């Protein structure tokens, strides 16, 4: 028991140090200052402050969960220690910055940041407040563990909901203003933060909601999975279909624009899902087919000097898909005999080759080189040109539905079985009479076709394309989104696209740290939920039998 307590102390000190490291880092790299300009609660509480005080609270909360048995007083003291260490490290940073010319090296240690950290007071006073608040939040976090489970969950959910609403305040503000007018919107929000009273209401309401839901879940017995007949299944899809149809009217231009971007990535994700998720071919150069689709569309339809055919969008669309699929076969053939990581680097190379060729002076006379192709007309239906994001949304929705439909049907048929067999064990699949060449090329071709379709929609959406839109980051982003969503799973791909494409778009104003948060999200996600948000059955099984499977390899 003694041993346990002493190790508990070491743990507490360590956690305090980690919390301090996080808060000091966040301050030093400038996140605190930038986020300090954004209020969660108007005039009261900024996102920067959240960054400073959430880490000790969260770490104290998790530590308290582990050492709860030691009793409330010891836990409180340890939590206080975590908070104190974290606060003290921040204070140390302020002191060091005042004493040494740190800013010549660490450029983000600005006077404004120091003001934020010391609450615009002297070092001593500021440090005291800083440590005090840290201790208070850490103790609060630890004490949460002693609240009965039902209440605790309700409380946590309410905190997260309120913070979420605060985070998305500018968007919600814009939407509410649009539907209900400026005055209503201003009741709830200032232009970028929650007002205090509504925040309390939201907090209380969500706490109550989660409490009663938790209670209801506790009381009711787990319902047996009901088998739905096809008719019921269909009925269930009708609200979804209606929702998808009216979505742009709810979202407004900007959010629809983001949805469109998500949709384009979703299209590509569905394609890559076939290549990587089903057929197991790790492709890091997937952007190549996106580029080929986009450039084909541009060359065929542009009304500028580089356009060759001035075709209509709809006439060019199948050509783009076919050209991309053909490119998939052509680029797929040389890599047929490569496995795993060799495949990855070669496909990455193909992606780069296509991008460099697109911007090269060699092909400039045909596709514009660095200056790209301009004047790509938007698609039109029945004489109406689809200009606004709300209109283009339907084209993208159509494409995405089609892609989801095709990939679903392929997966649940002999083709899908063959792909999965090949992914599981290429040699055995071949010994079972599966023609690997055909099967792989089919995966490459269909995957490339989807990507080409995305590209073909992408170029009229922008009306101009440049080689810089087709860089390695796109391939990486698509790969990440299908894995984070759940490899091999179509709903997973949708969620992945929403999180990895949609969320960063929504957080545009934090652009400087967007990629940092994106990276962090990938790591945290993989550590906590390696199978993705909505895993496919296959992957879930694989993770469970992971160890035996690996032993063989």
């Amino acid at each position, binding site marked *: 028991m003694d041993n346990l307590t002493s190790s508990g102390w070491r743990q507490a000190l360590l956690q305090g140090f980690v919390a301090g490291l996080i808060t000091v880092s966040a301050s030093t790299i400038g996140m605190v200052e930038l986020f300090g300009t954004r209020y969660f609660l108007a005039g009261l509480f900024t996102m920067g402050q959240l960054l400073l005080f959430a880490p000790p609270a969260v770490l104290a909360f998790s530590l308290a969960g582990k050492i709860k048995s030691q009793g409330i007083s010891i836990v409180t003291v340890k939590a206080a220690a975590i908070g104190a260490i974290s606060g003290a490290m921040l204070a140390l940073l302020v002191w060091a910055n005042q004493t040494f010319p740190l800013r010549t090296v660490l450029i983000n240690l600005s006077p404004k940041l120091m003001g934020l950290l010391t609450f615009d007071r002297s070092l001593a006073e500021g440090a005291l407040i800083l440590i005090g608040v840290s201790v208070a939040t850490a103790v609060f976090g630890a004490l949460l563990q002693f609240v009965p489970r039902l209440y605790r969950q309700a409380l946590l959910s309410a905190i997260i909901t309120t913070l979420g609403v605060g985070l998305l305040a500018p968007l919600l503000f814009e939407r509410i203003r*649009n539907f209900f007018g400026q005055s209503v919107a201003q009741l709830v929000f200032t232009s970028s933060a929650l007002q205090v009273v509504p925040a309390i209401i939201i907090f209380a309401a969500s706490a109550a909601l989660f409490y009663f839901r938790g209670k209801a879940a506790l009381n009711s017995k787990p319902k047996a999975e009901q088998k739905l007949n096809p008719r019921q299944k*269909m009925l269930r899809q009708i609200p979804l279909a209606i929702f998808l149809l009216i979505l742009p009217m709810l979202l*407004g231009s900007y959010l629809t624009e983001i949805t469109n971007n998500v949709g384009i990535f979703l299209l590509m994700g569905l394609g890559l899902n076939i290549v990587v998720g089903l057929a197991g071919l790790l492709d890091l150069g997937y952007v190549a087919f996106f580029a080929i689709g986009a450039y084909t569309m541009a060359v065929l339809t542009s009304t500028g000097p580089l356009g060759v055919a001035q075709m209509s969008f709809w006439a060019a669309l199948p050509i783009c898909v076919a050209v991309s699929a053909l490119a998939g076969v052509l680029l797929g053939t040389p890599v047929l005999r490569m496995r795993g990581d060799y495949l990855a680097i070669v496909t990455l190379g193909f992606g780069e080759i296509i991008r460099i060729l697109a911007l090269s002076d060699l092909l400039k006379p045909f596709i514009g080189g660095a200056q790209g192709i301009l004047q790509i007309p938007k698609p039109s239906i029945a004489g*109406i040109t*689809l200009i606004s994001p709300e209109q283009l949304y339907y084209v993208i929705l159509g494409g995405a*539905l089609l892609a989801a439909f095709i990939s679903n049907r392929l997966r649940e048929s002999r083709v899908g079985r063959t792909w999965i067999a090949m992914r599981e064990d290429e040699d055995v699949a071949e010994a079972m009479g599966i023609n690997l060449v055909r099967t792989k090329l089919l995966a490459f071709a269909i995957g490339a076709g989807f990507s080409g379709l995305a590209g073909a929609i992408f170029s009229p959406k922008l*009306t*101009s394309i440049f080689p810089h*839109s087709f860089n390695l980051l796109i391939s990486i982003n698509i790969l990440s989104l299908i894995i984070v969503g759940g490899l091999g799973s179509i709903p997973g791909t949708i969620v992945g696209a929403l999180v990895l494409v949609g969320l960063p778009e929504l957080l545009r104003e934090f652009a400087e740290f967007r990629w940092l948060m994106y990276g962090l999200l990938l790591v945290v996600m993989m550590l906590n939920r390696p199978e993705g948000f909505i895993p496919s059955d296959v992957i879930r099984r694989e993770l469970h039998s992971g160890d035996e499977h690996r032993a063989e390899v």
Partner: protein
Amino acid sequence: MSKKAFSILALLVVTSLLLAACGAPAASGGADAPAAEGDVVVAAGDPIRIASALVISGPNTDLGLDSQHGVEIAIEFKGEIKGHAIELQAEDDGCSAEGGQAAGQKIVSDPSIVAVIGTSCSGSGVPMAQVVSDAGYVMVSPSNTAPSLTDPAQAWKPGYLRTAHNDKVQGAAMAEYAYSVLGLSTAAAIHDGDPYTEGLANAFRESFEALGGSVVAFTAVNVGDTDMRPVLTSIAASEGGAPAFLFFPVFTAECAHLATQALEVAGLENTVRGAADGCFSAASAEAIGDAAPGMYFSGPDLSFSGDVYNQFAAAYQSNFGTAPISVFHAHAFDATNMVFACIEEVSVEGADGSLTINRQAMRDCLYATSGFQGITGSLTCNEYGDCADPKIAVYEIVDGEYVSVWP
């Protein structure tokens, strides 16, 4: 999926396409009406809001961040307009077409935004000009230089202006200087596949050849390249002989590599080097270091604005901890001030202390800008939004400072 589900899906696709066709009036008449009204009303006590859309993530960050700093300092210097504070909403254009489009959509969905400073990259500028113009807003770019953006036959849109120099102007100036002033008749040009550098290199080539010089090599490197010696060696061995003048209007990192490594390549020892404003920053000067003698830089003529610029530079250092990190902070500062001047001119104060700004008036005012004294020169906008002072100066680095040598 069952057969029925398939038919539902098919129906859905068809309906959505139909809806898309009919959606036109619904969409433009519905949600985003403010653009049609054309007035921004700033209530008493509220700030005037402007937006920026510059590249603040990815490898080109310092280009956009530097411009954003310029905007922020302009706001700081200005303080307030007619009793209203000024608030900046900073967006990221991602230096990509899709980034520019998304940032543009976000900005035009906010009816309180009066004007936009952006974009950084020409590639983002093209789609954003479309979005912003369609919505009735106005944007002033501090660093788009692609000729197509102010070419009405190509990408120009009625809400688009810029304070950055059209590539044609700057490329021609450098050609003029090399050929006429330095008396060099052979040249080579290098770009890095960026639309900006490619456009500038091309403009230089055209002007230099028009003046009677010969361009012996026109080649390119890639962004991110570090070892420039091979390409420089092949230029030195050009068919027309080693060029007397080597122009590489690329950005800091590659520019410094080219500038220093050119001295180390056999055959280019006596070649005069030239770069453009992509290489016009404290960091560049430092990175070029000892290789500075014998190198010229084209850029806006800052000679007469010394005082304001010095104040500006001091504010920059104290706010952001460094000297200006890239080139277009001055253009951004001017663009922002141009916008302020027009807000002052067209805004109408209401009795309740509110301010009403008409979007069309704002556009007209900006296009009518004439003889505006900025730190990049005297700005006069033409009918397609090119506002930069056509006066380009040529500098060299003396003791780490850029010193004007021409005109």
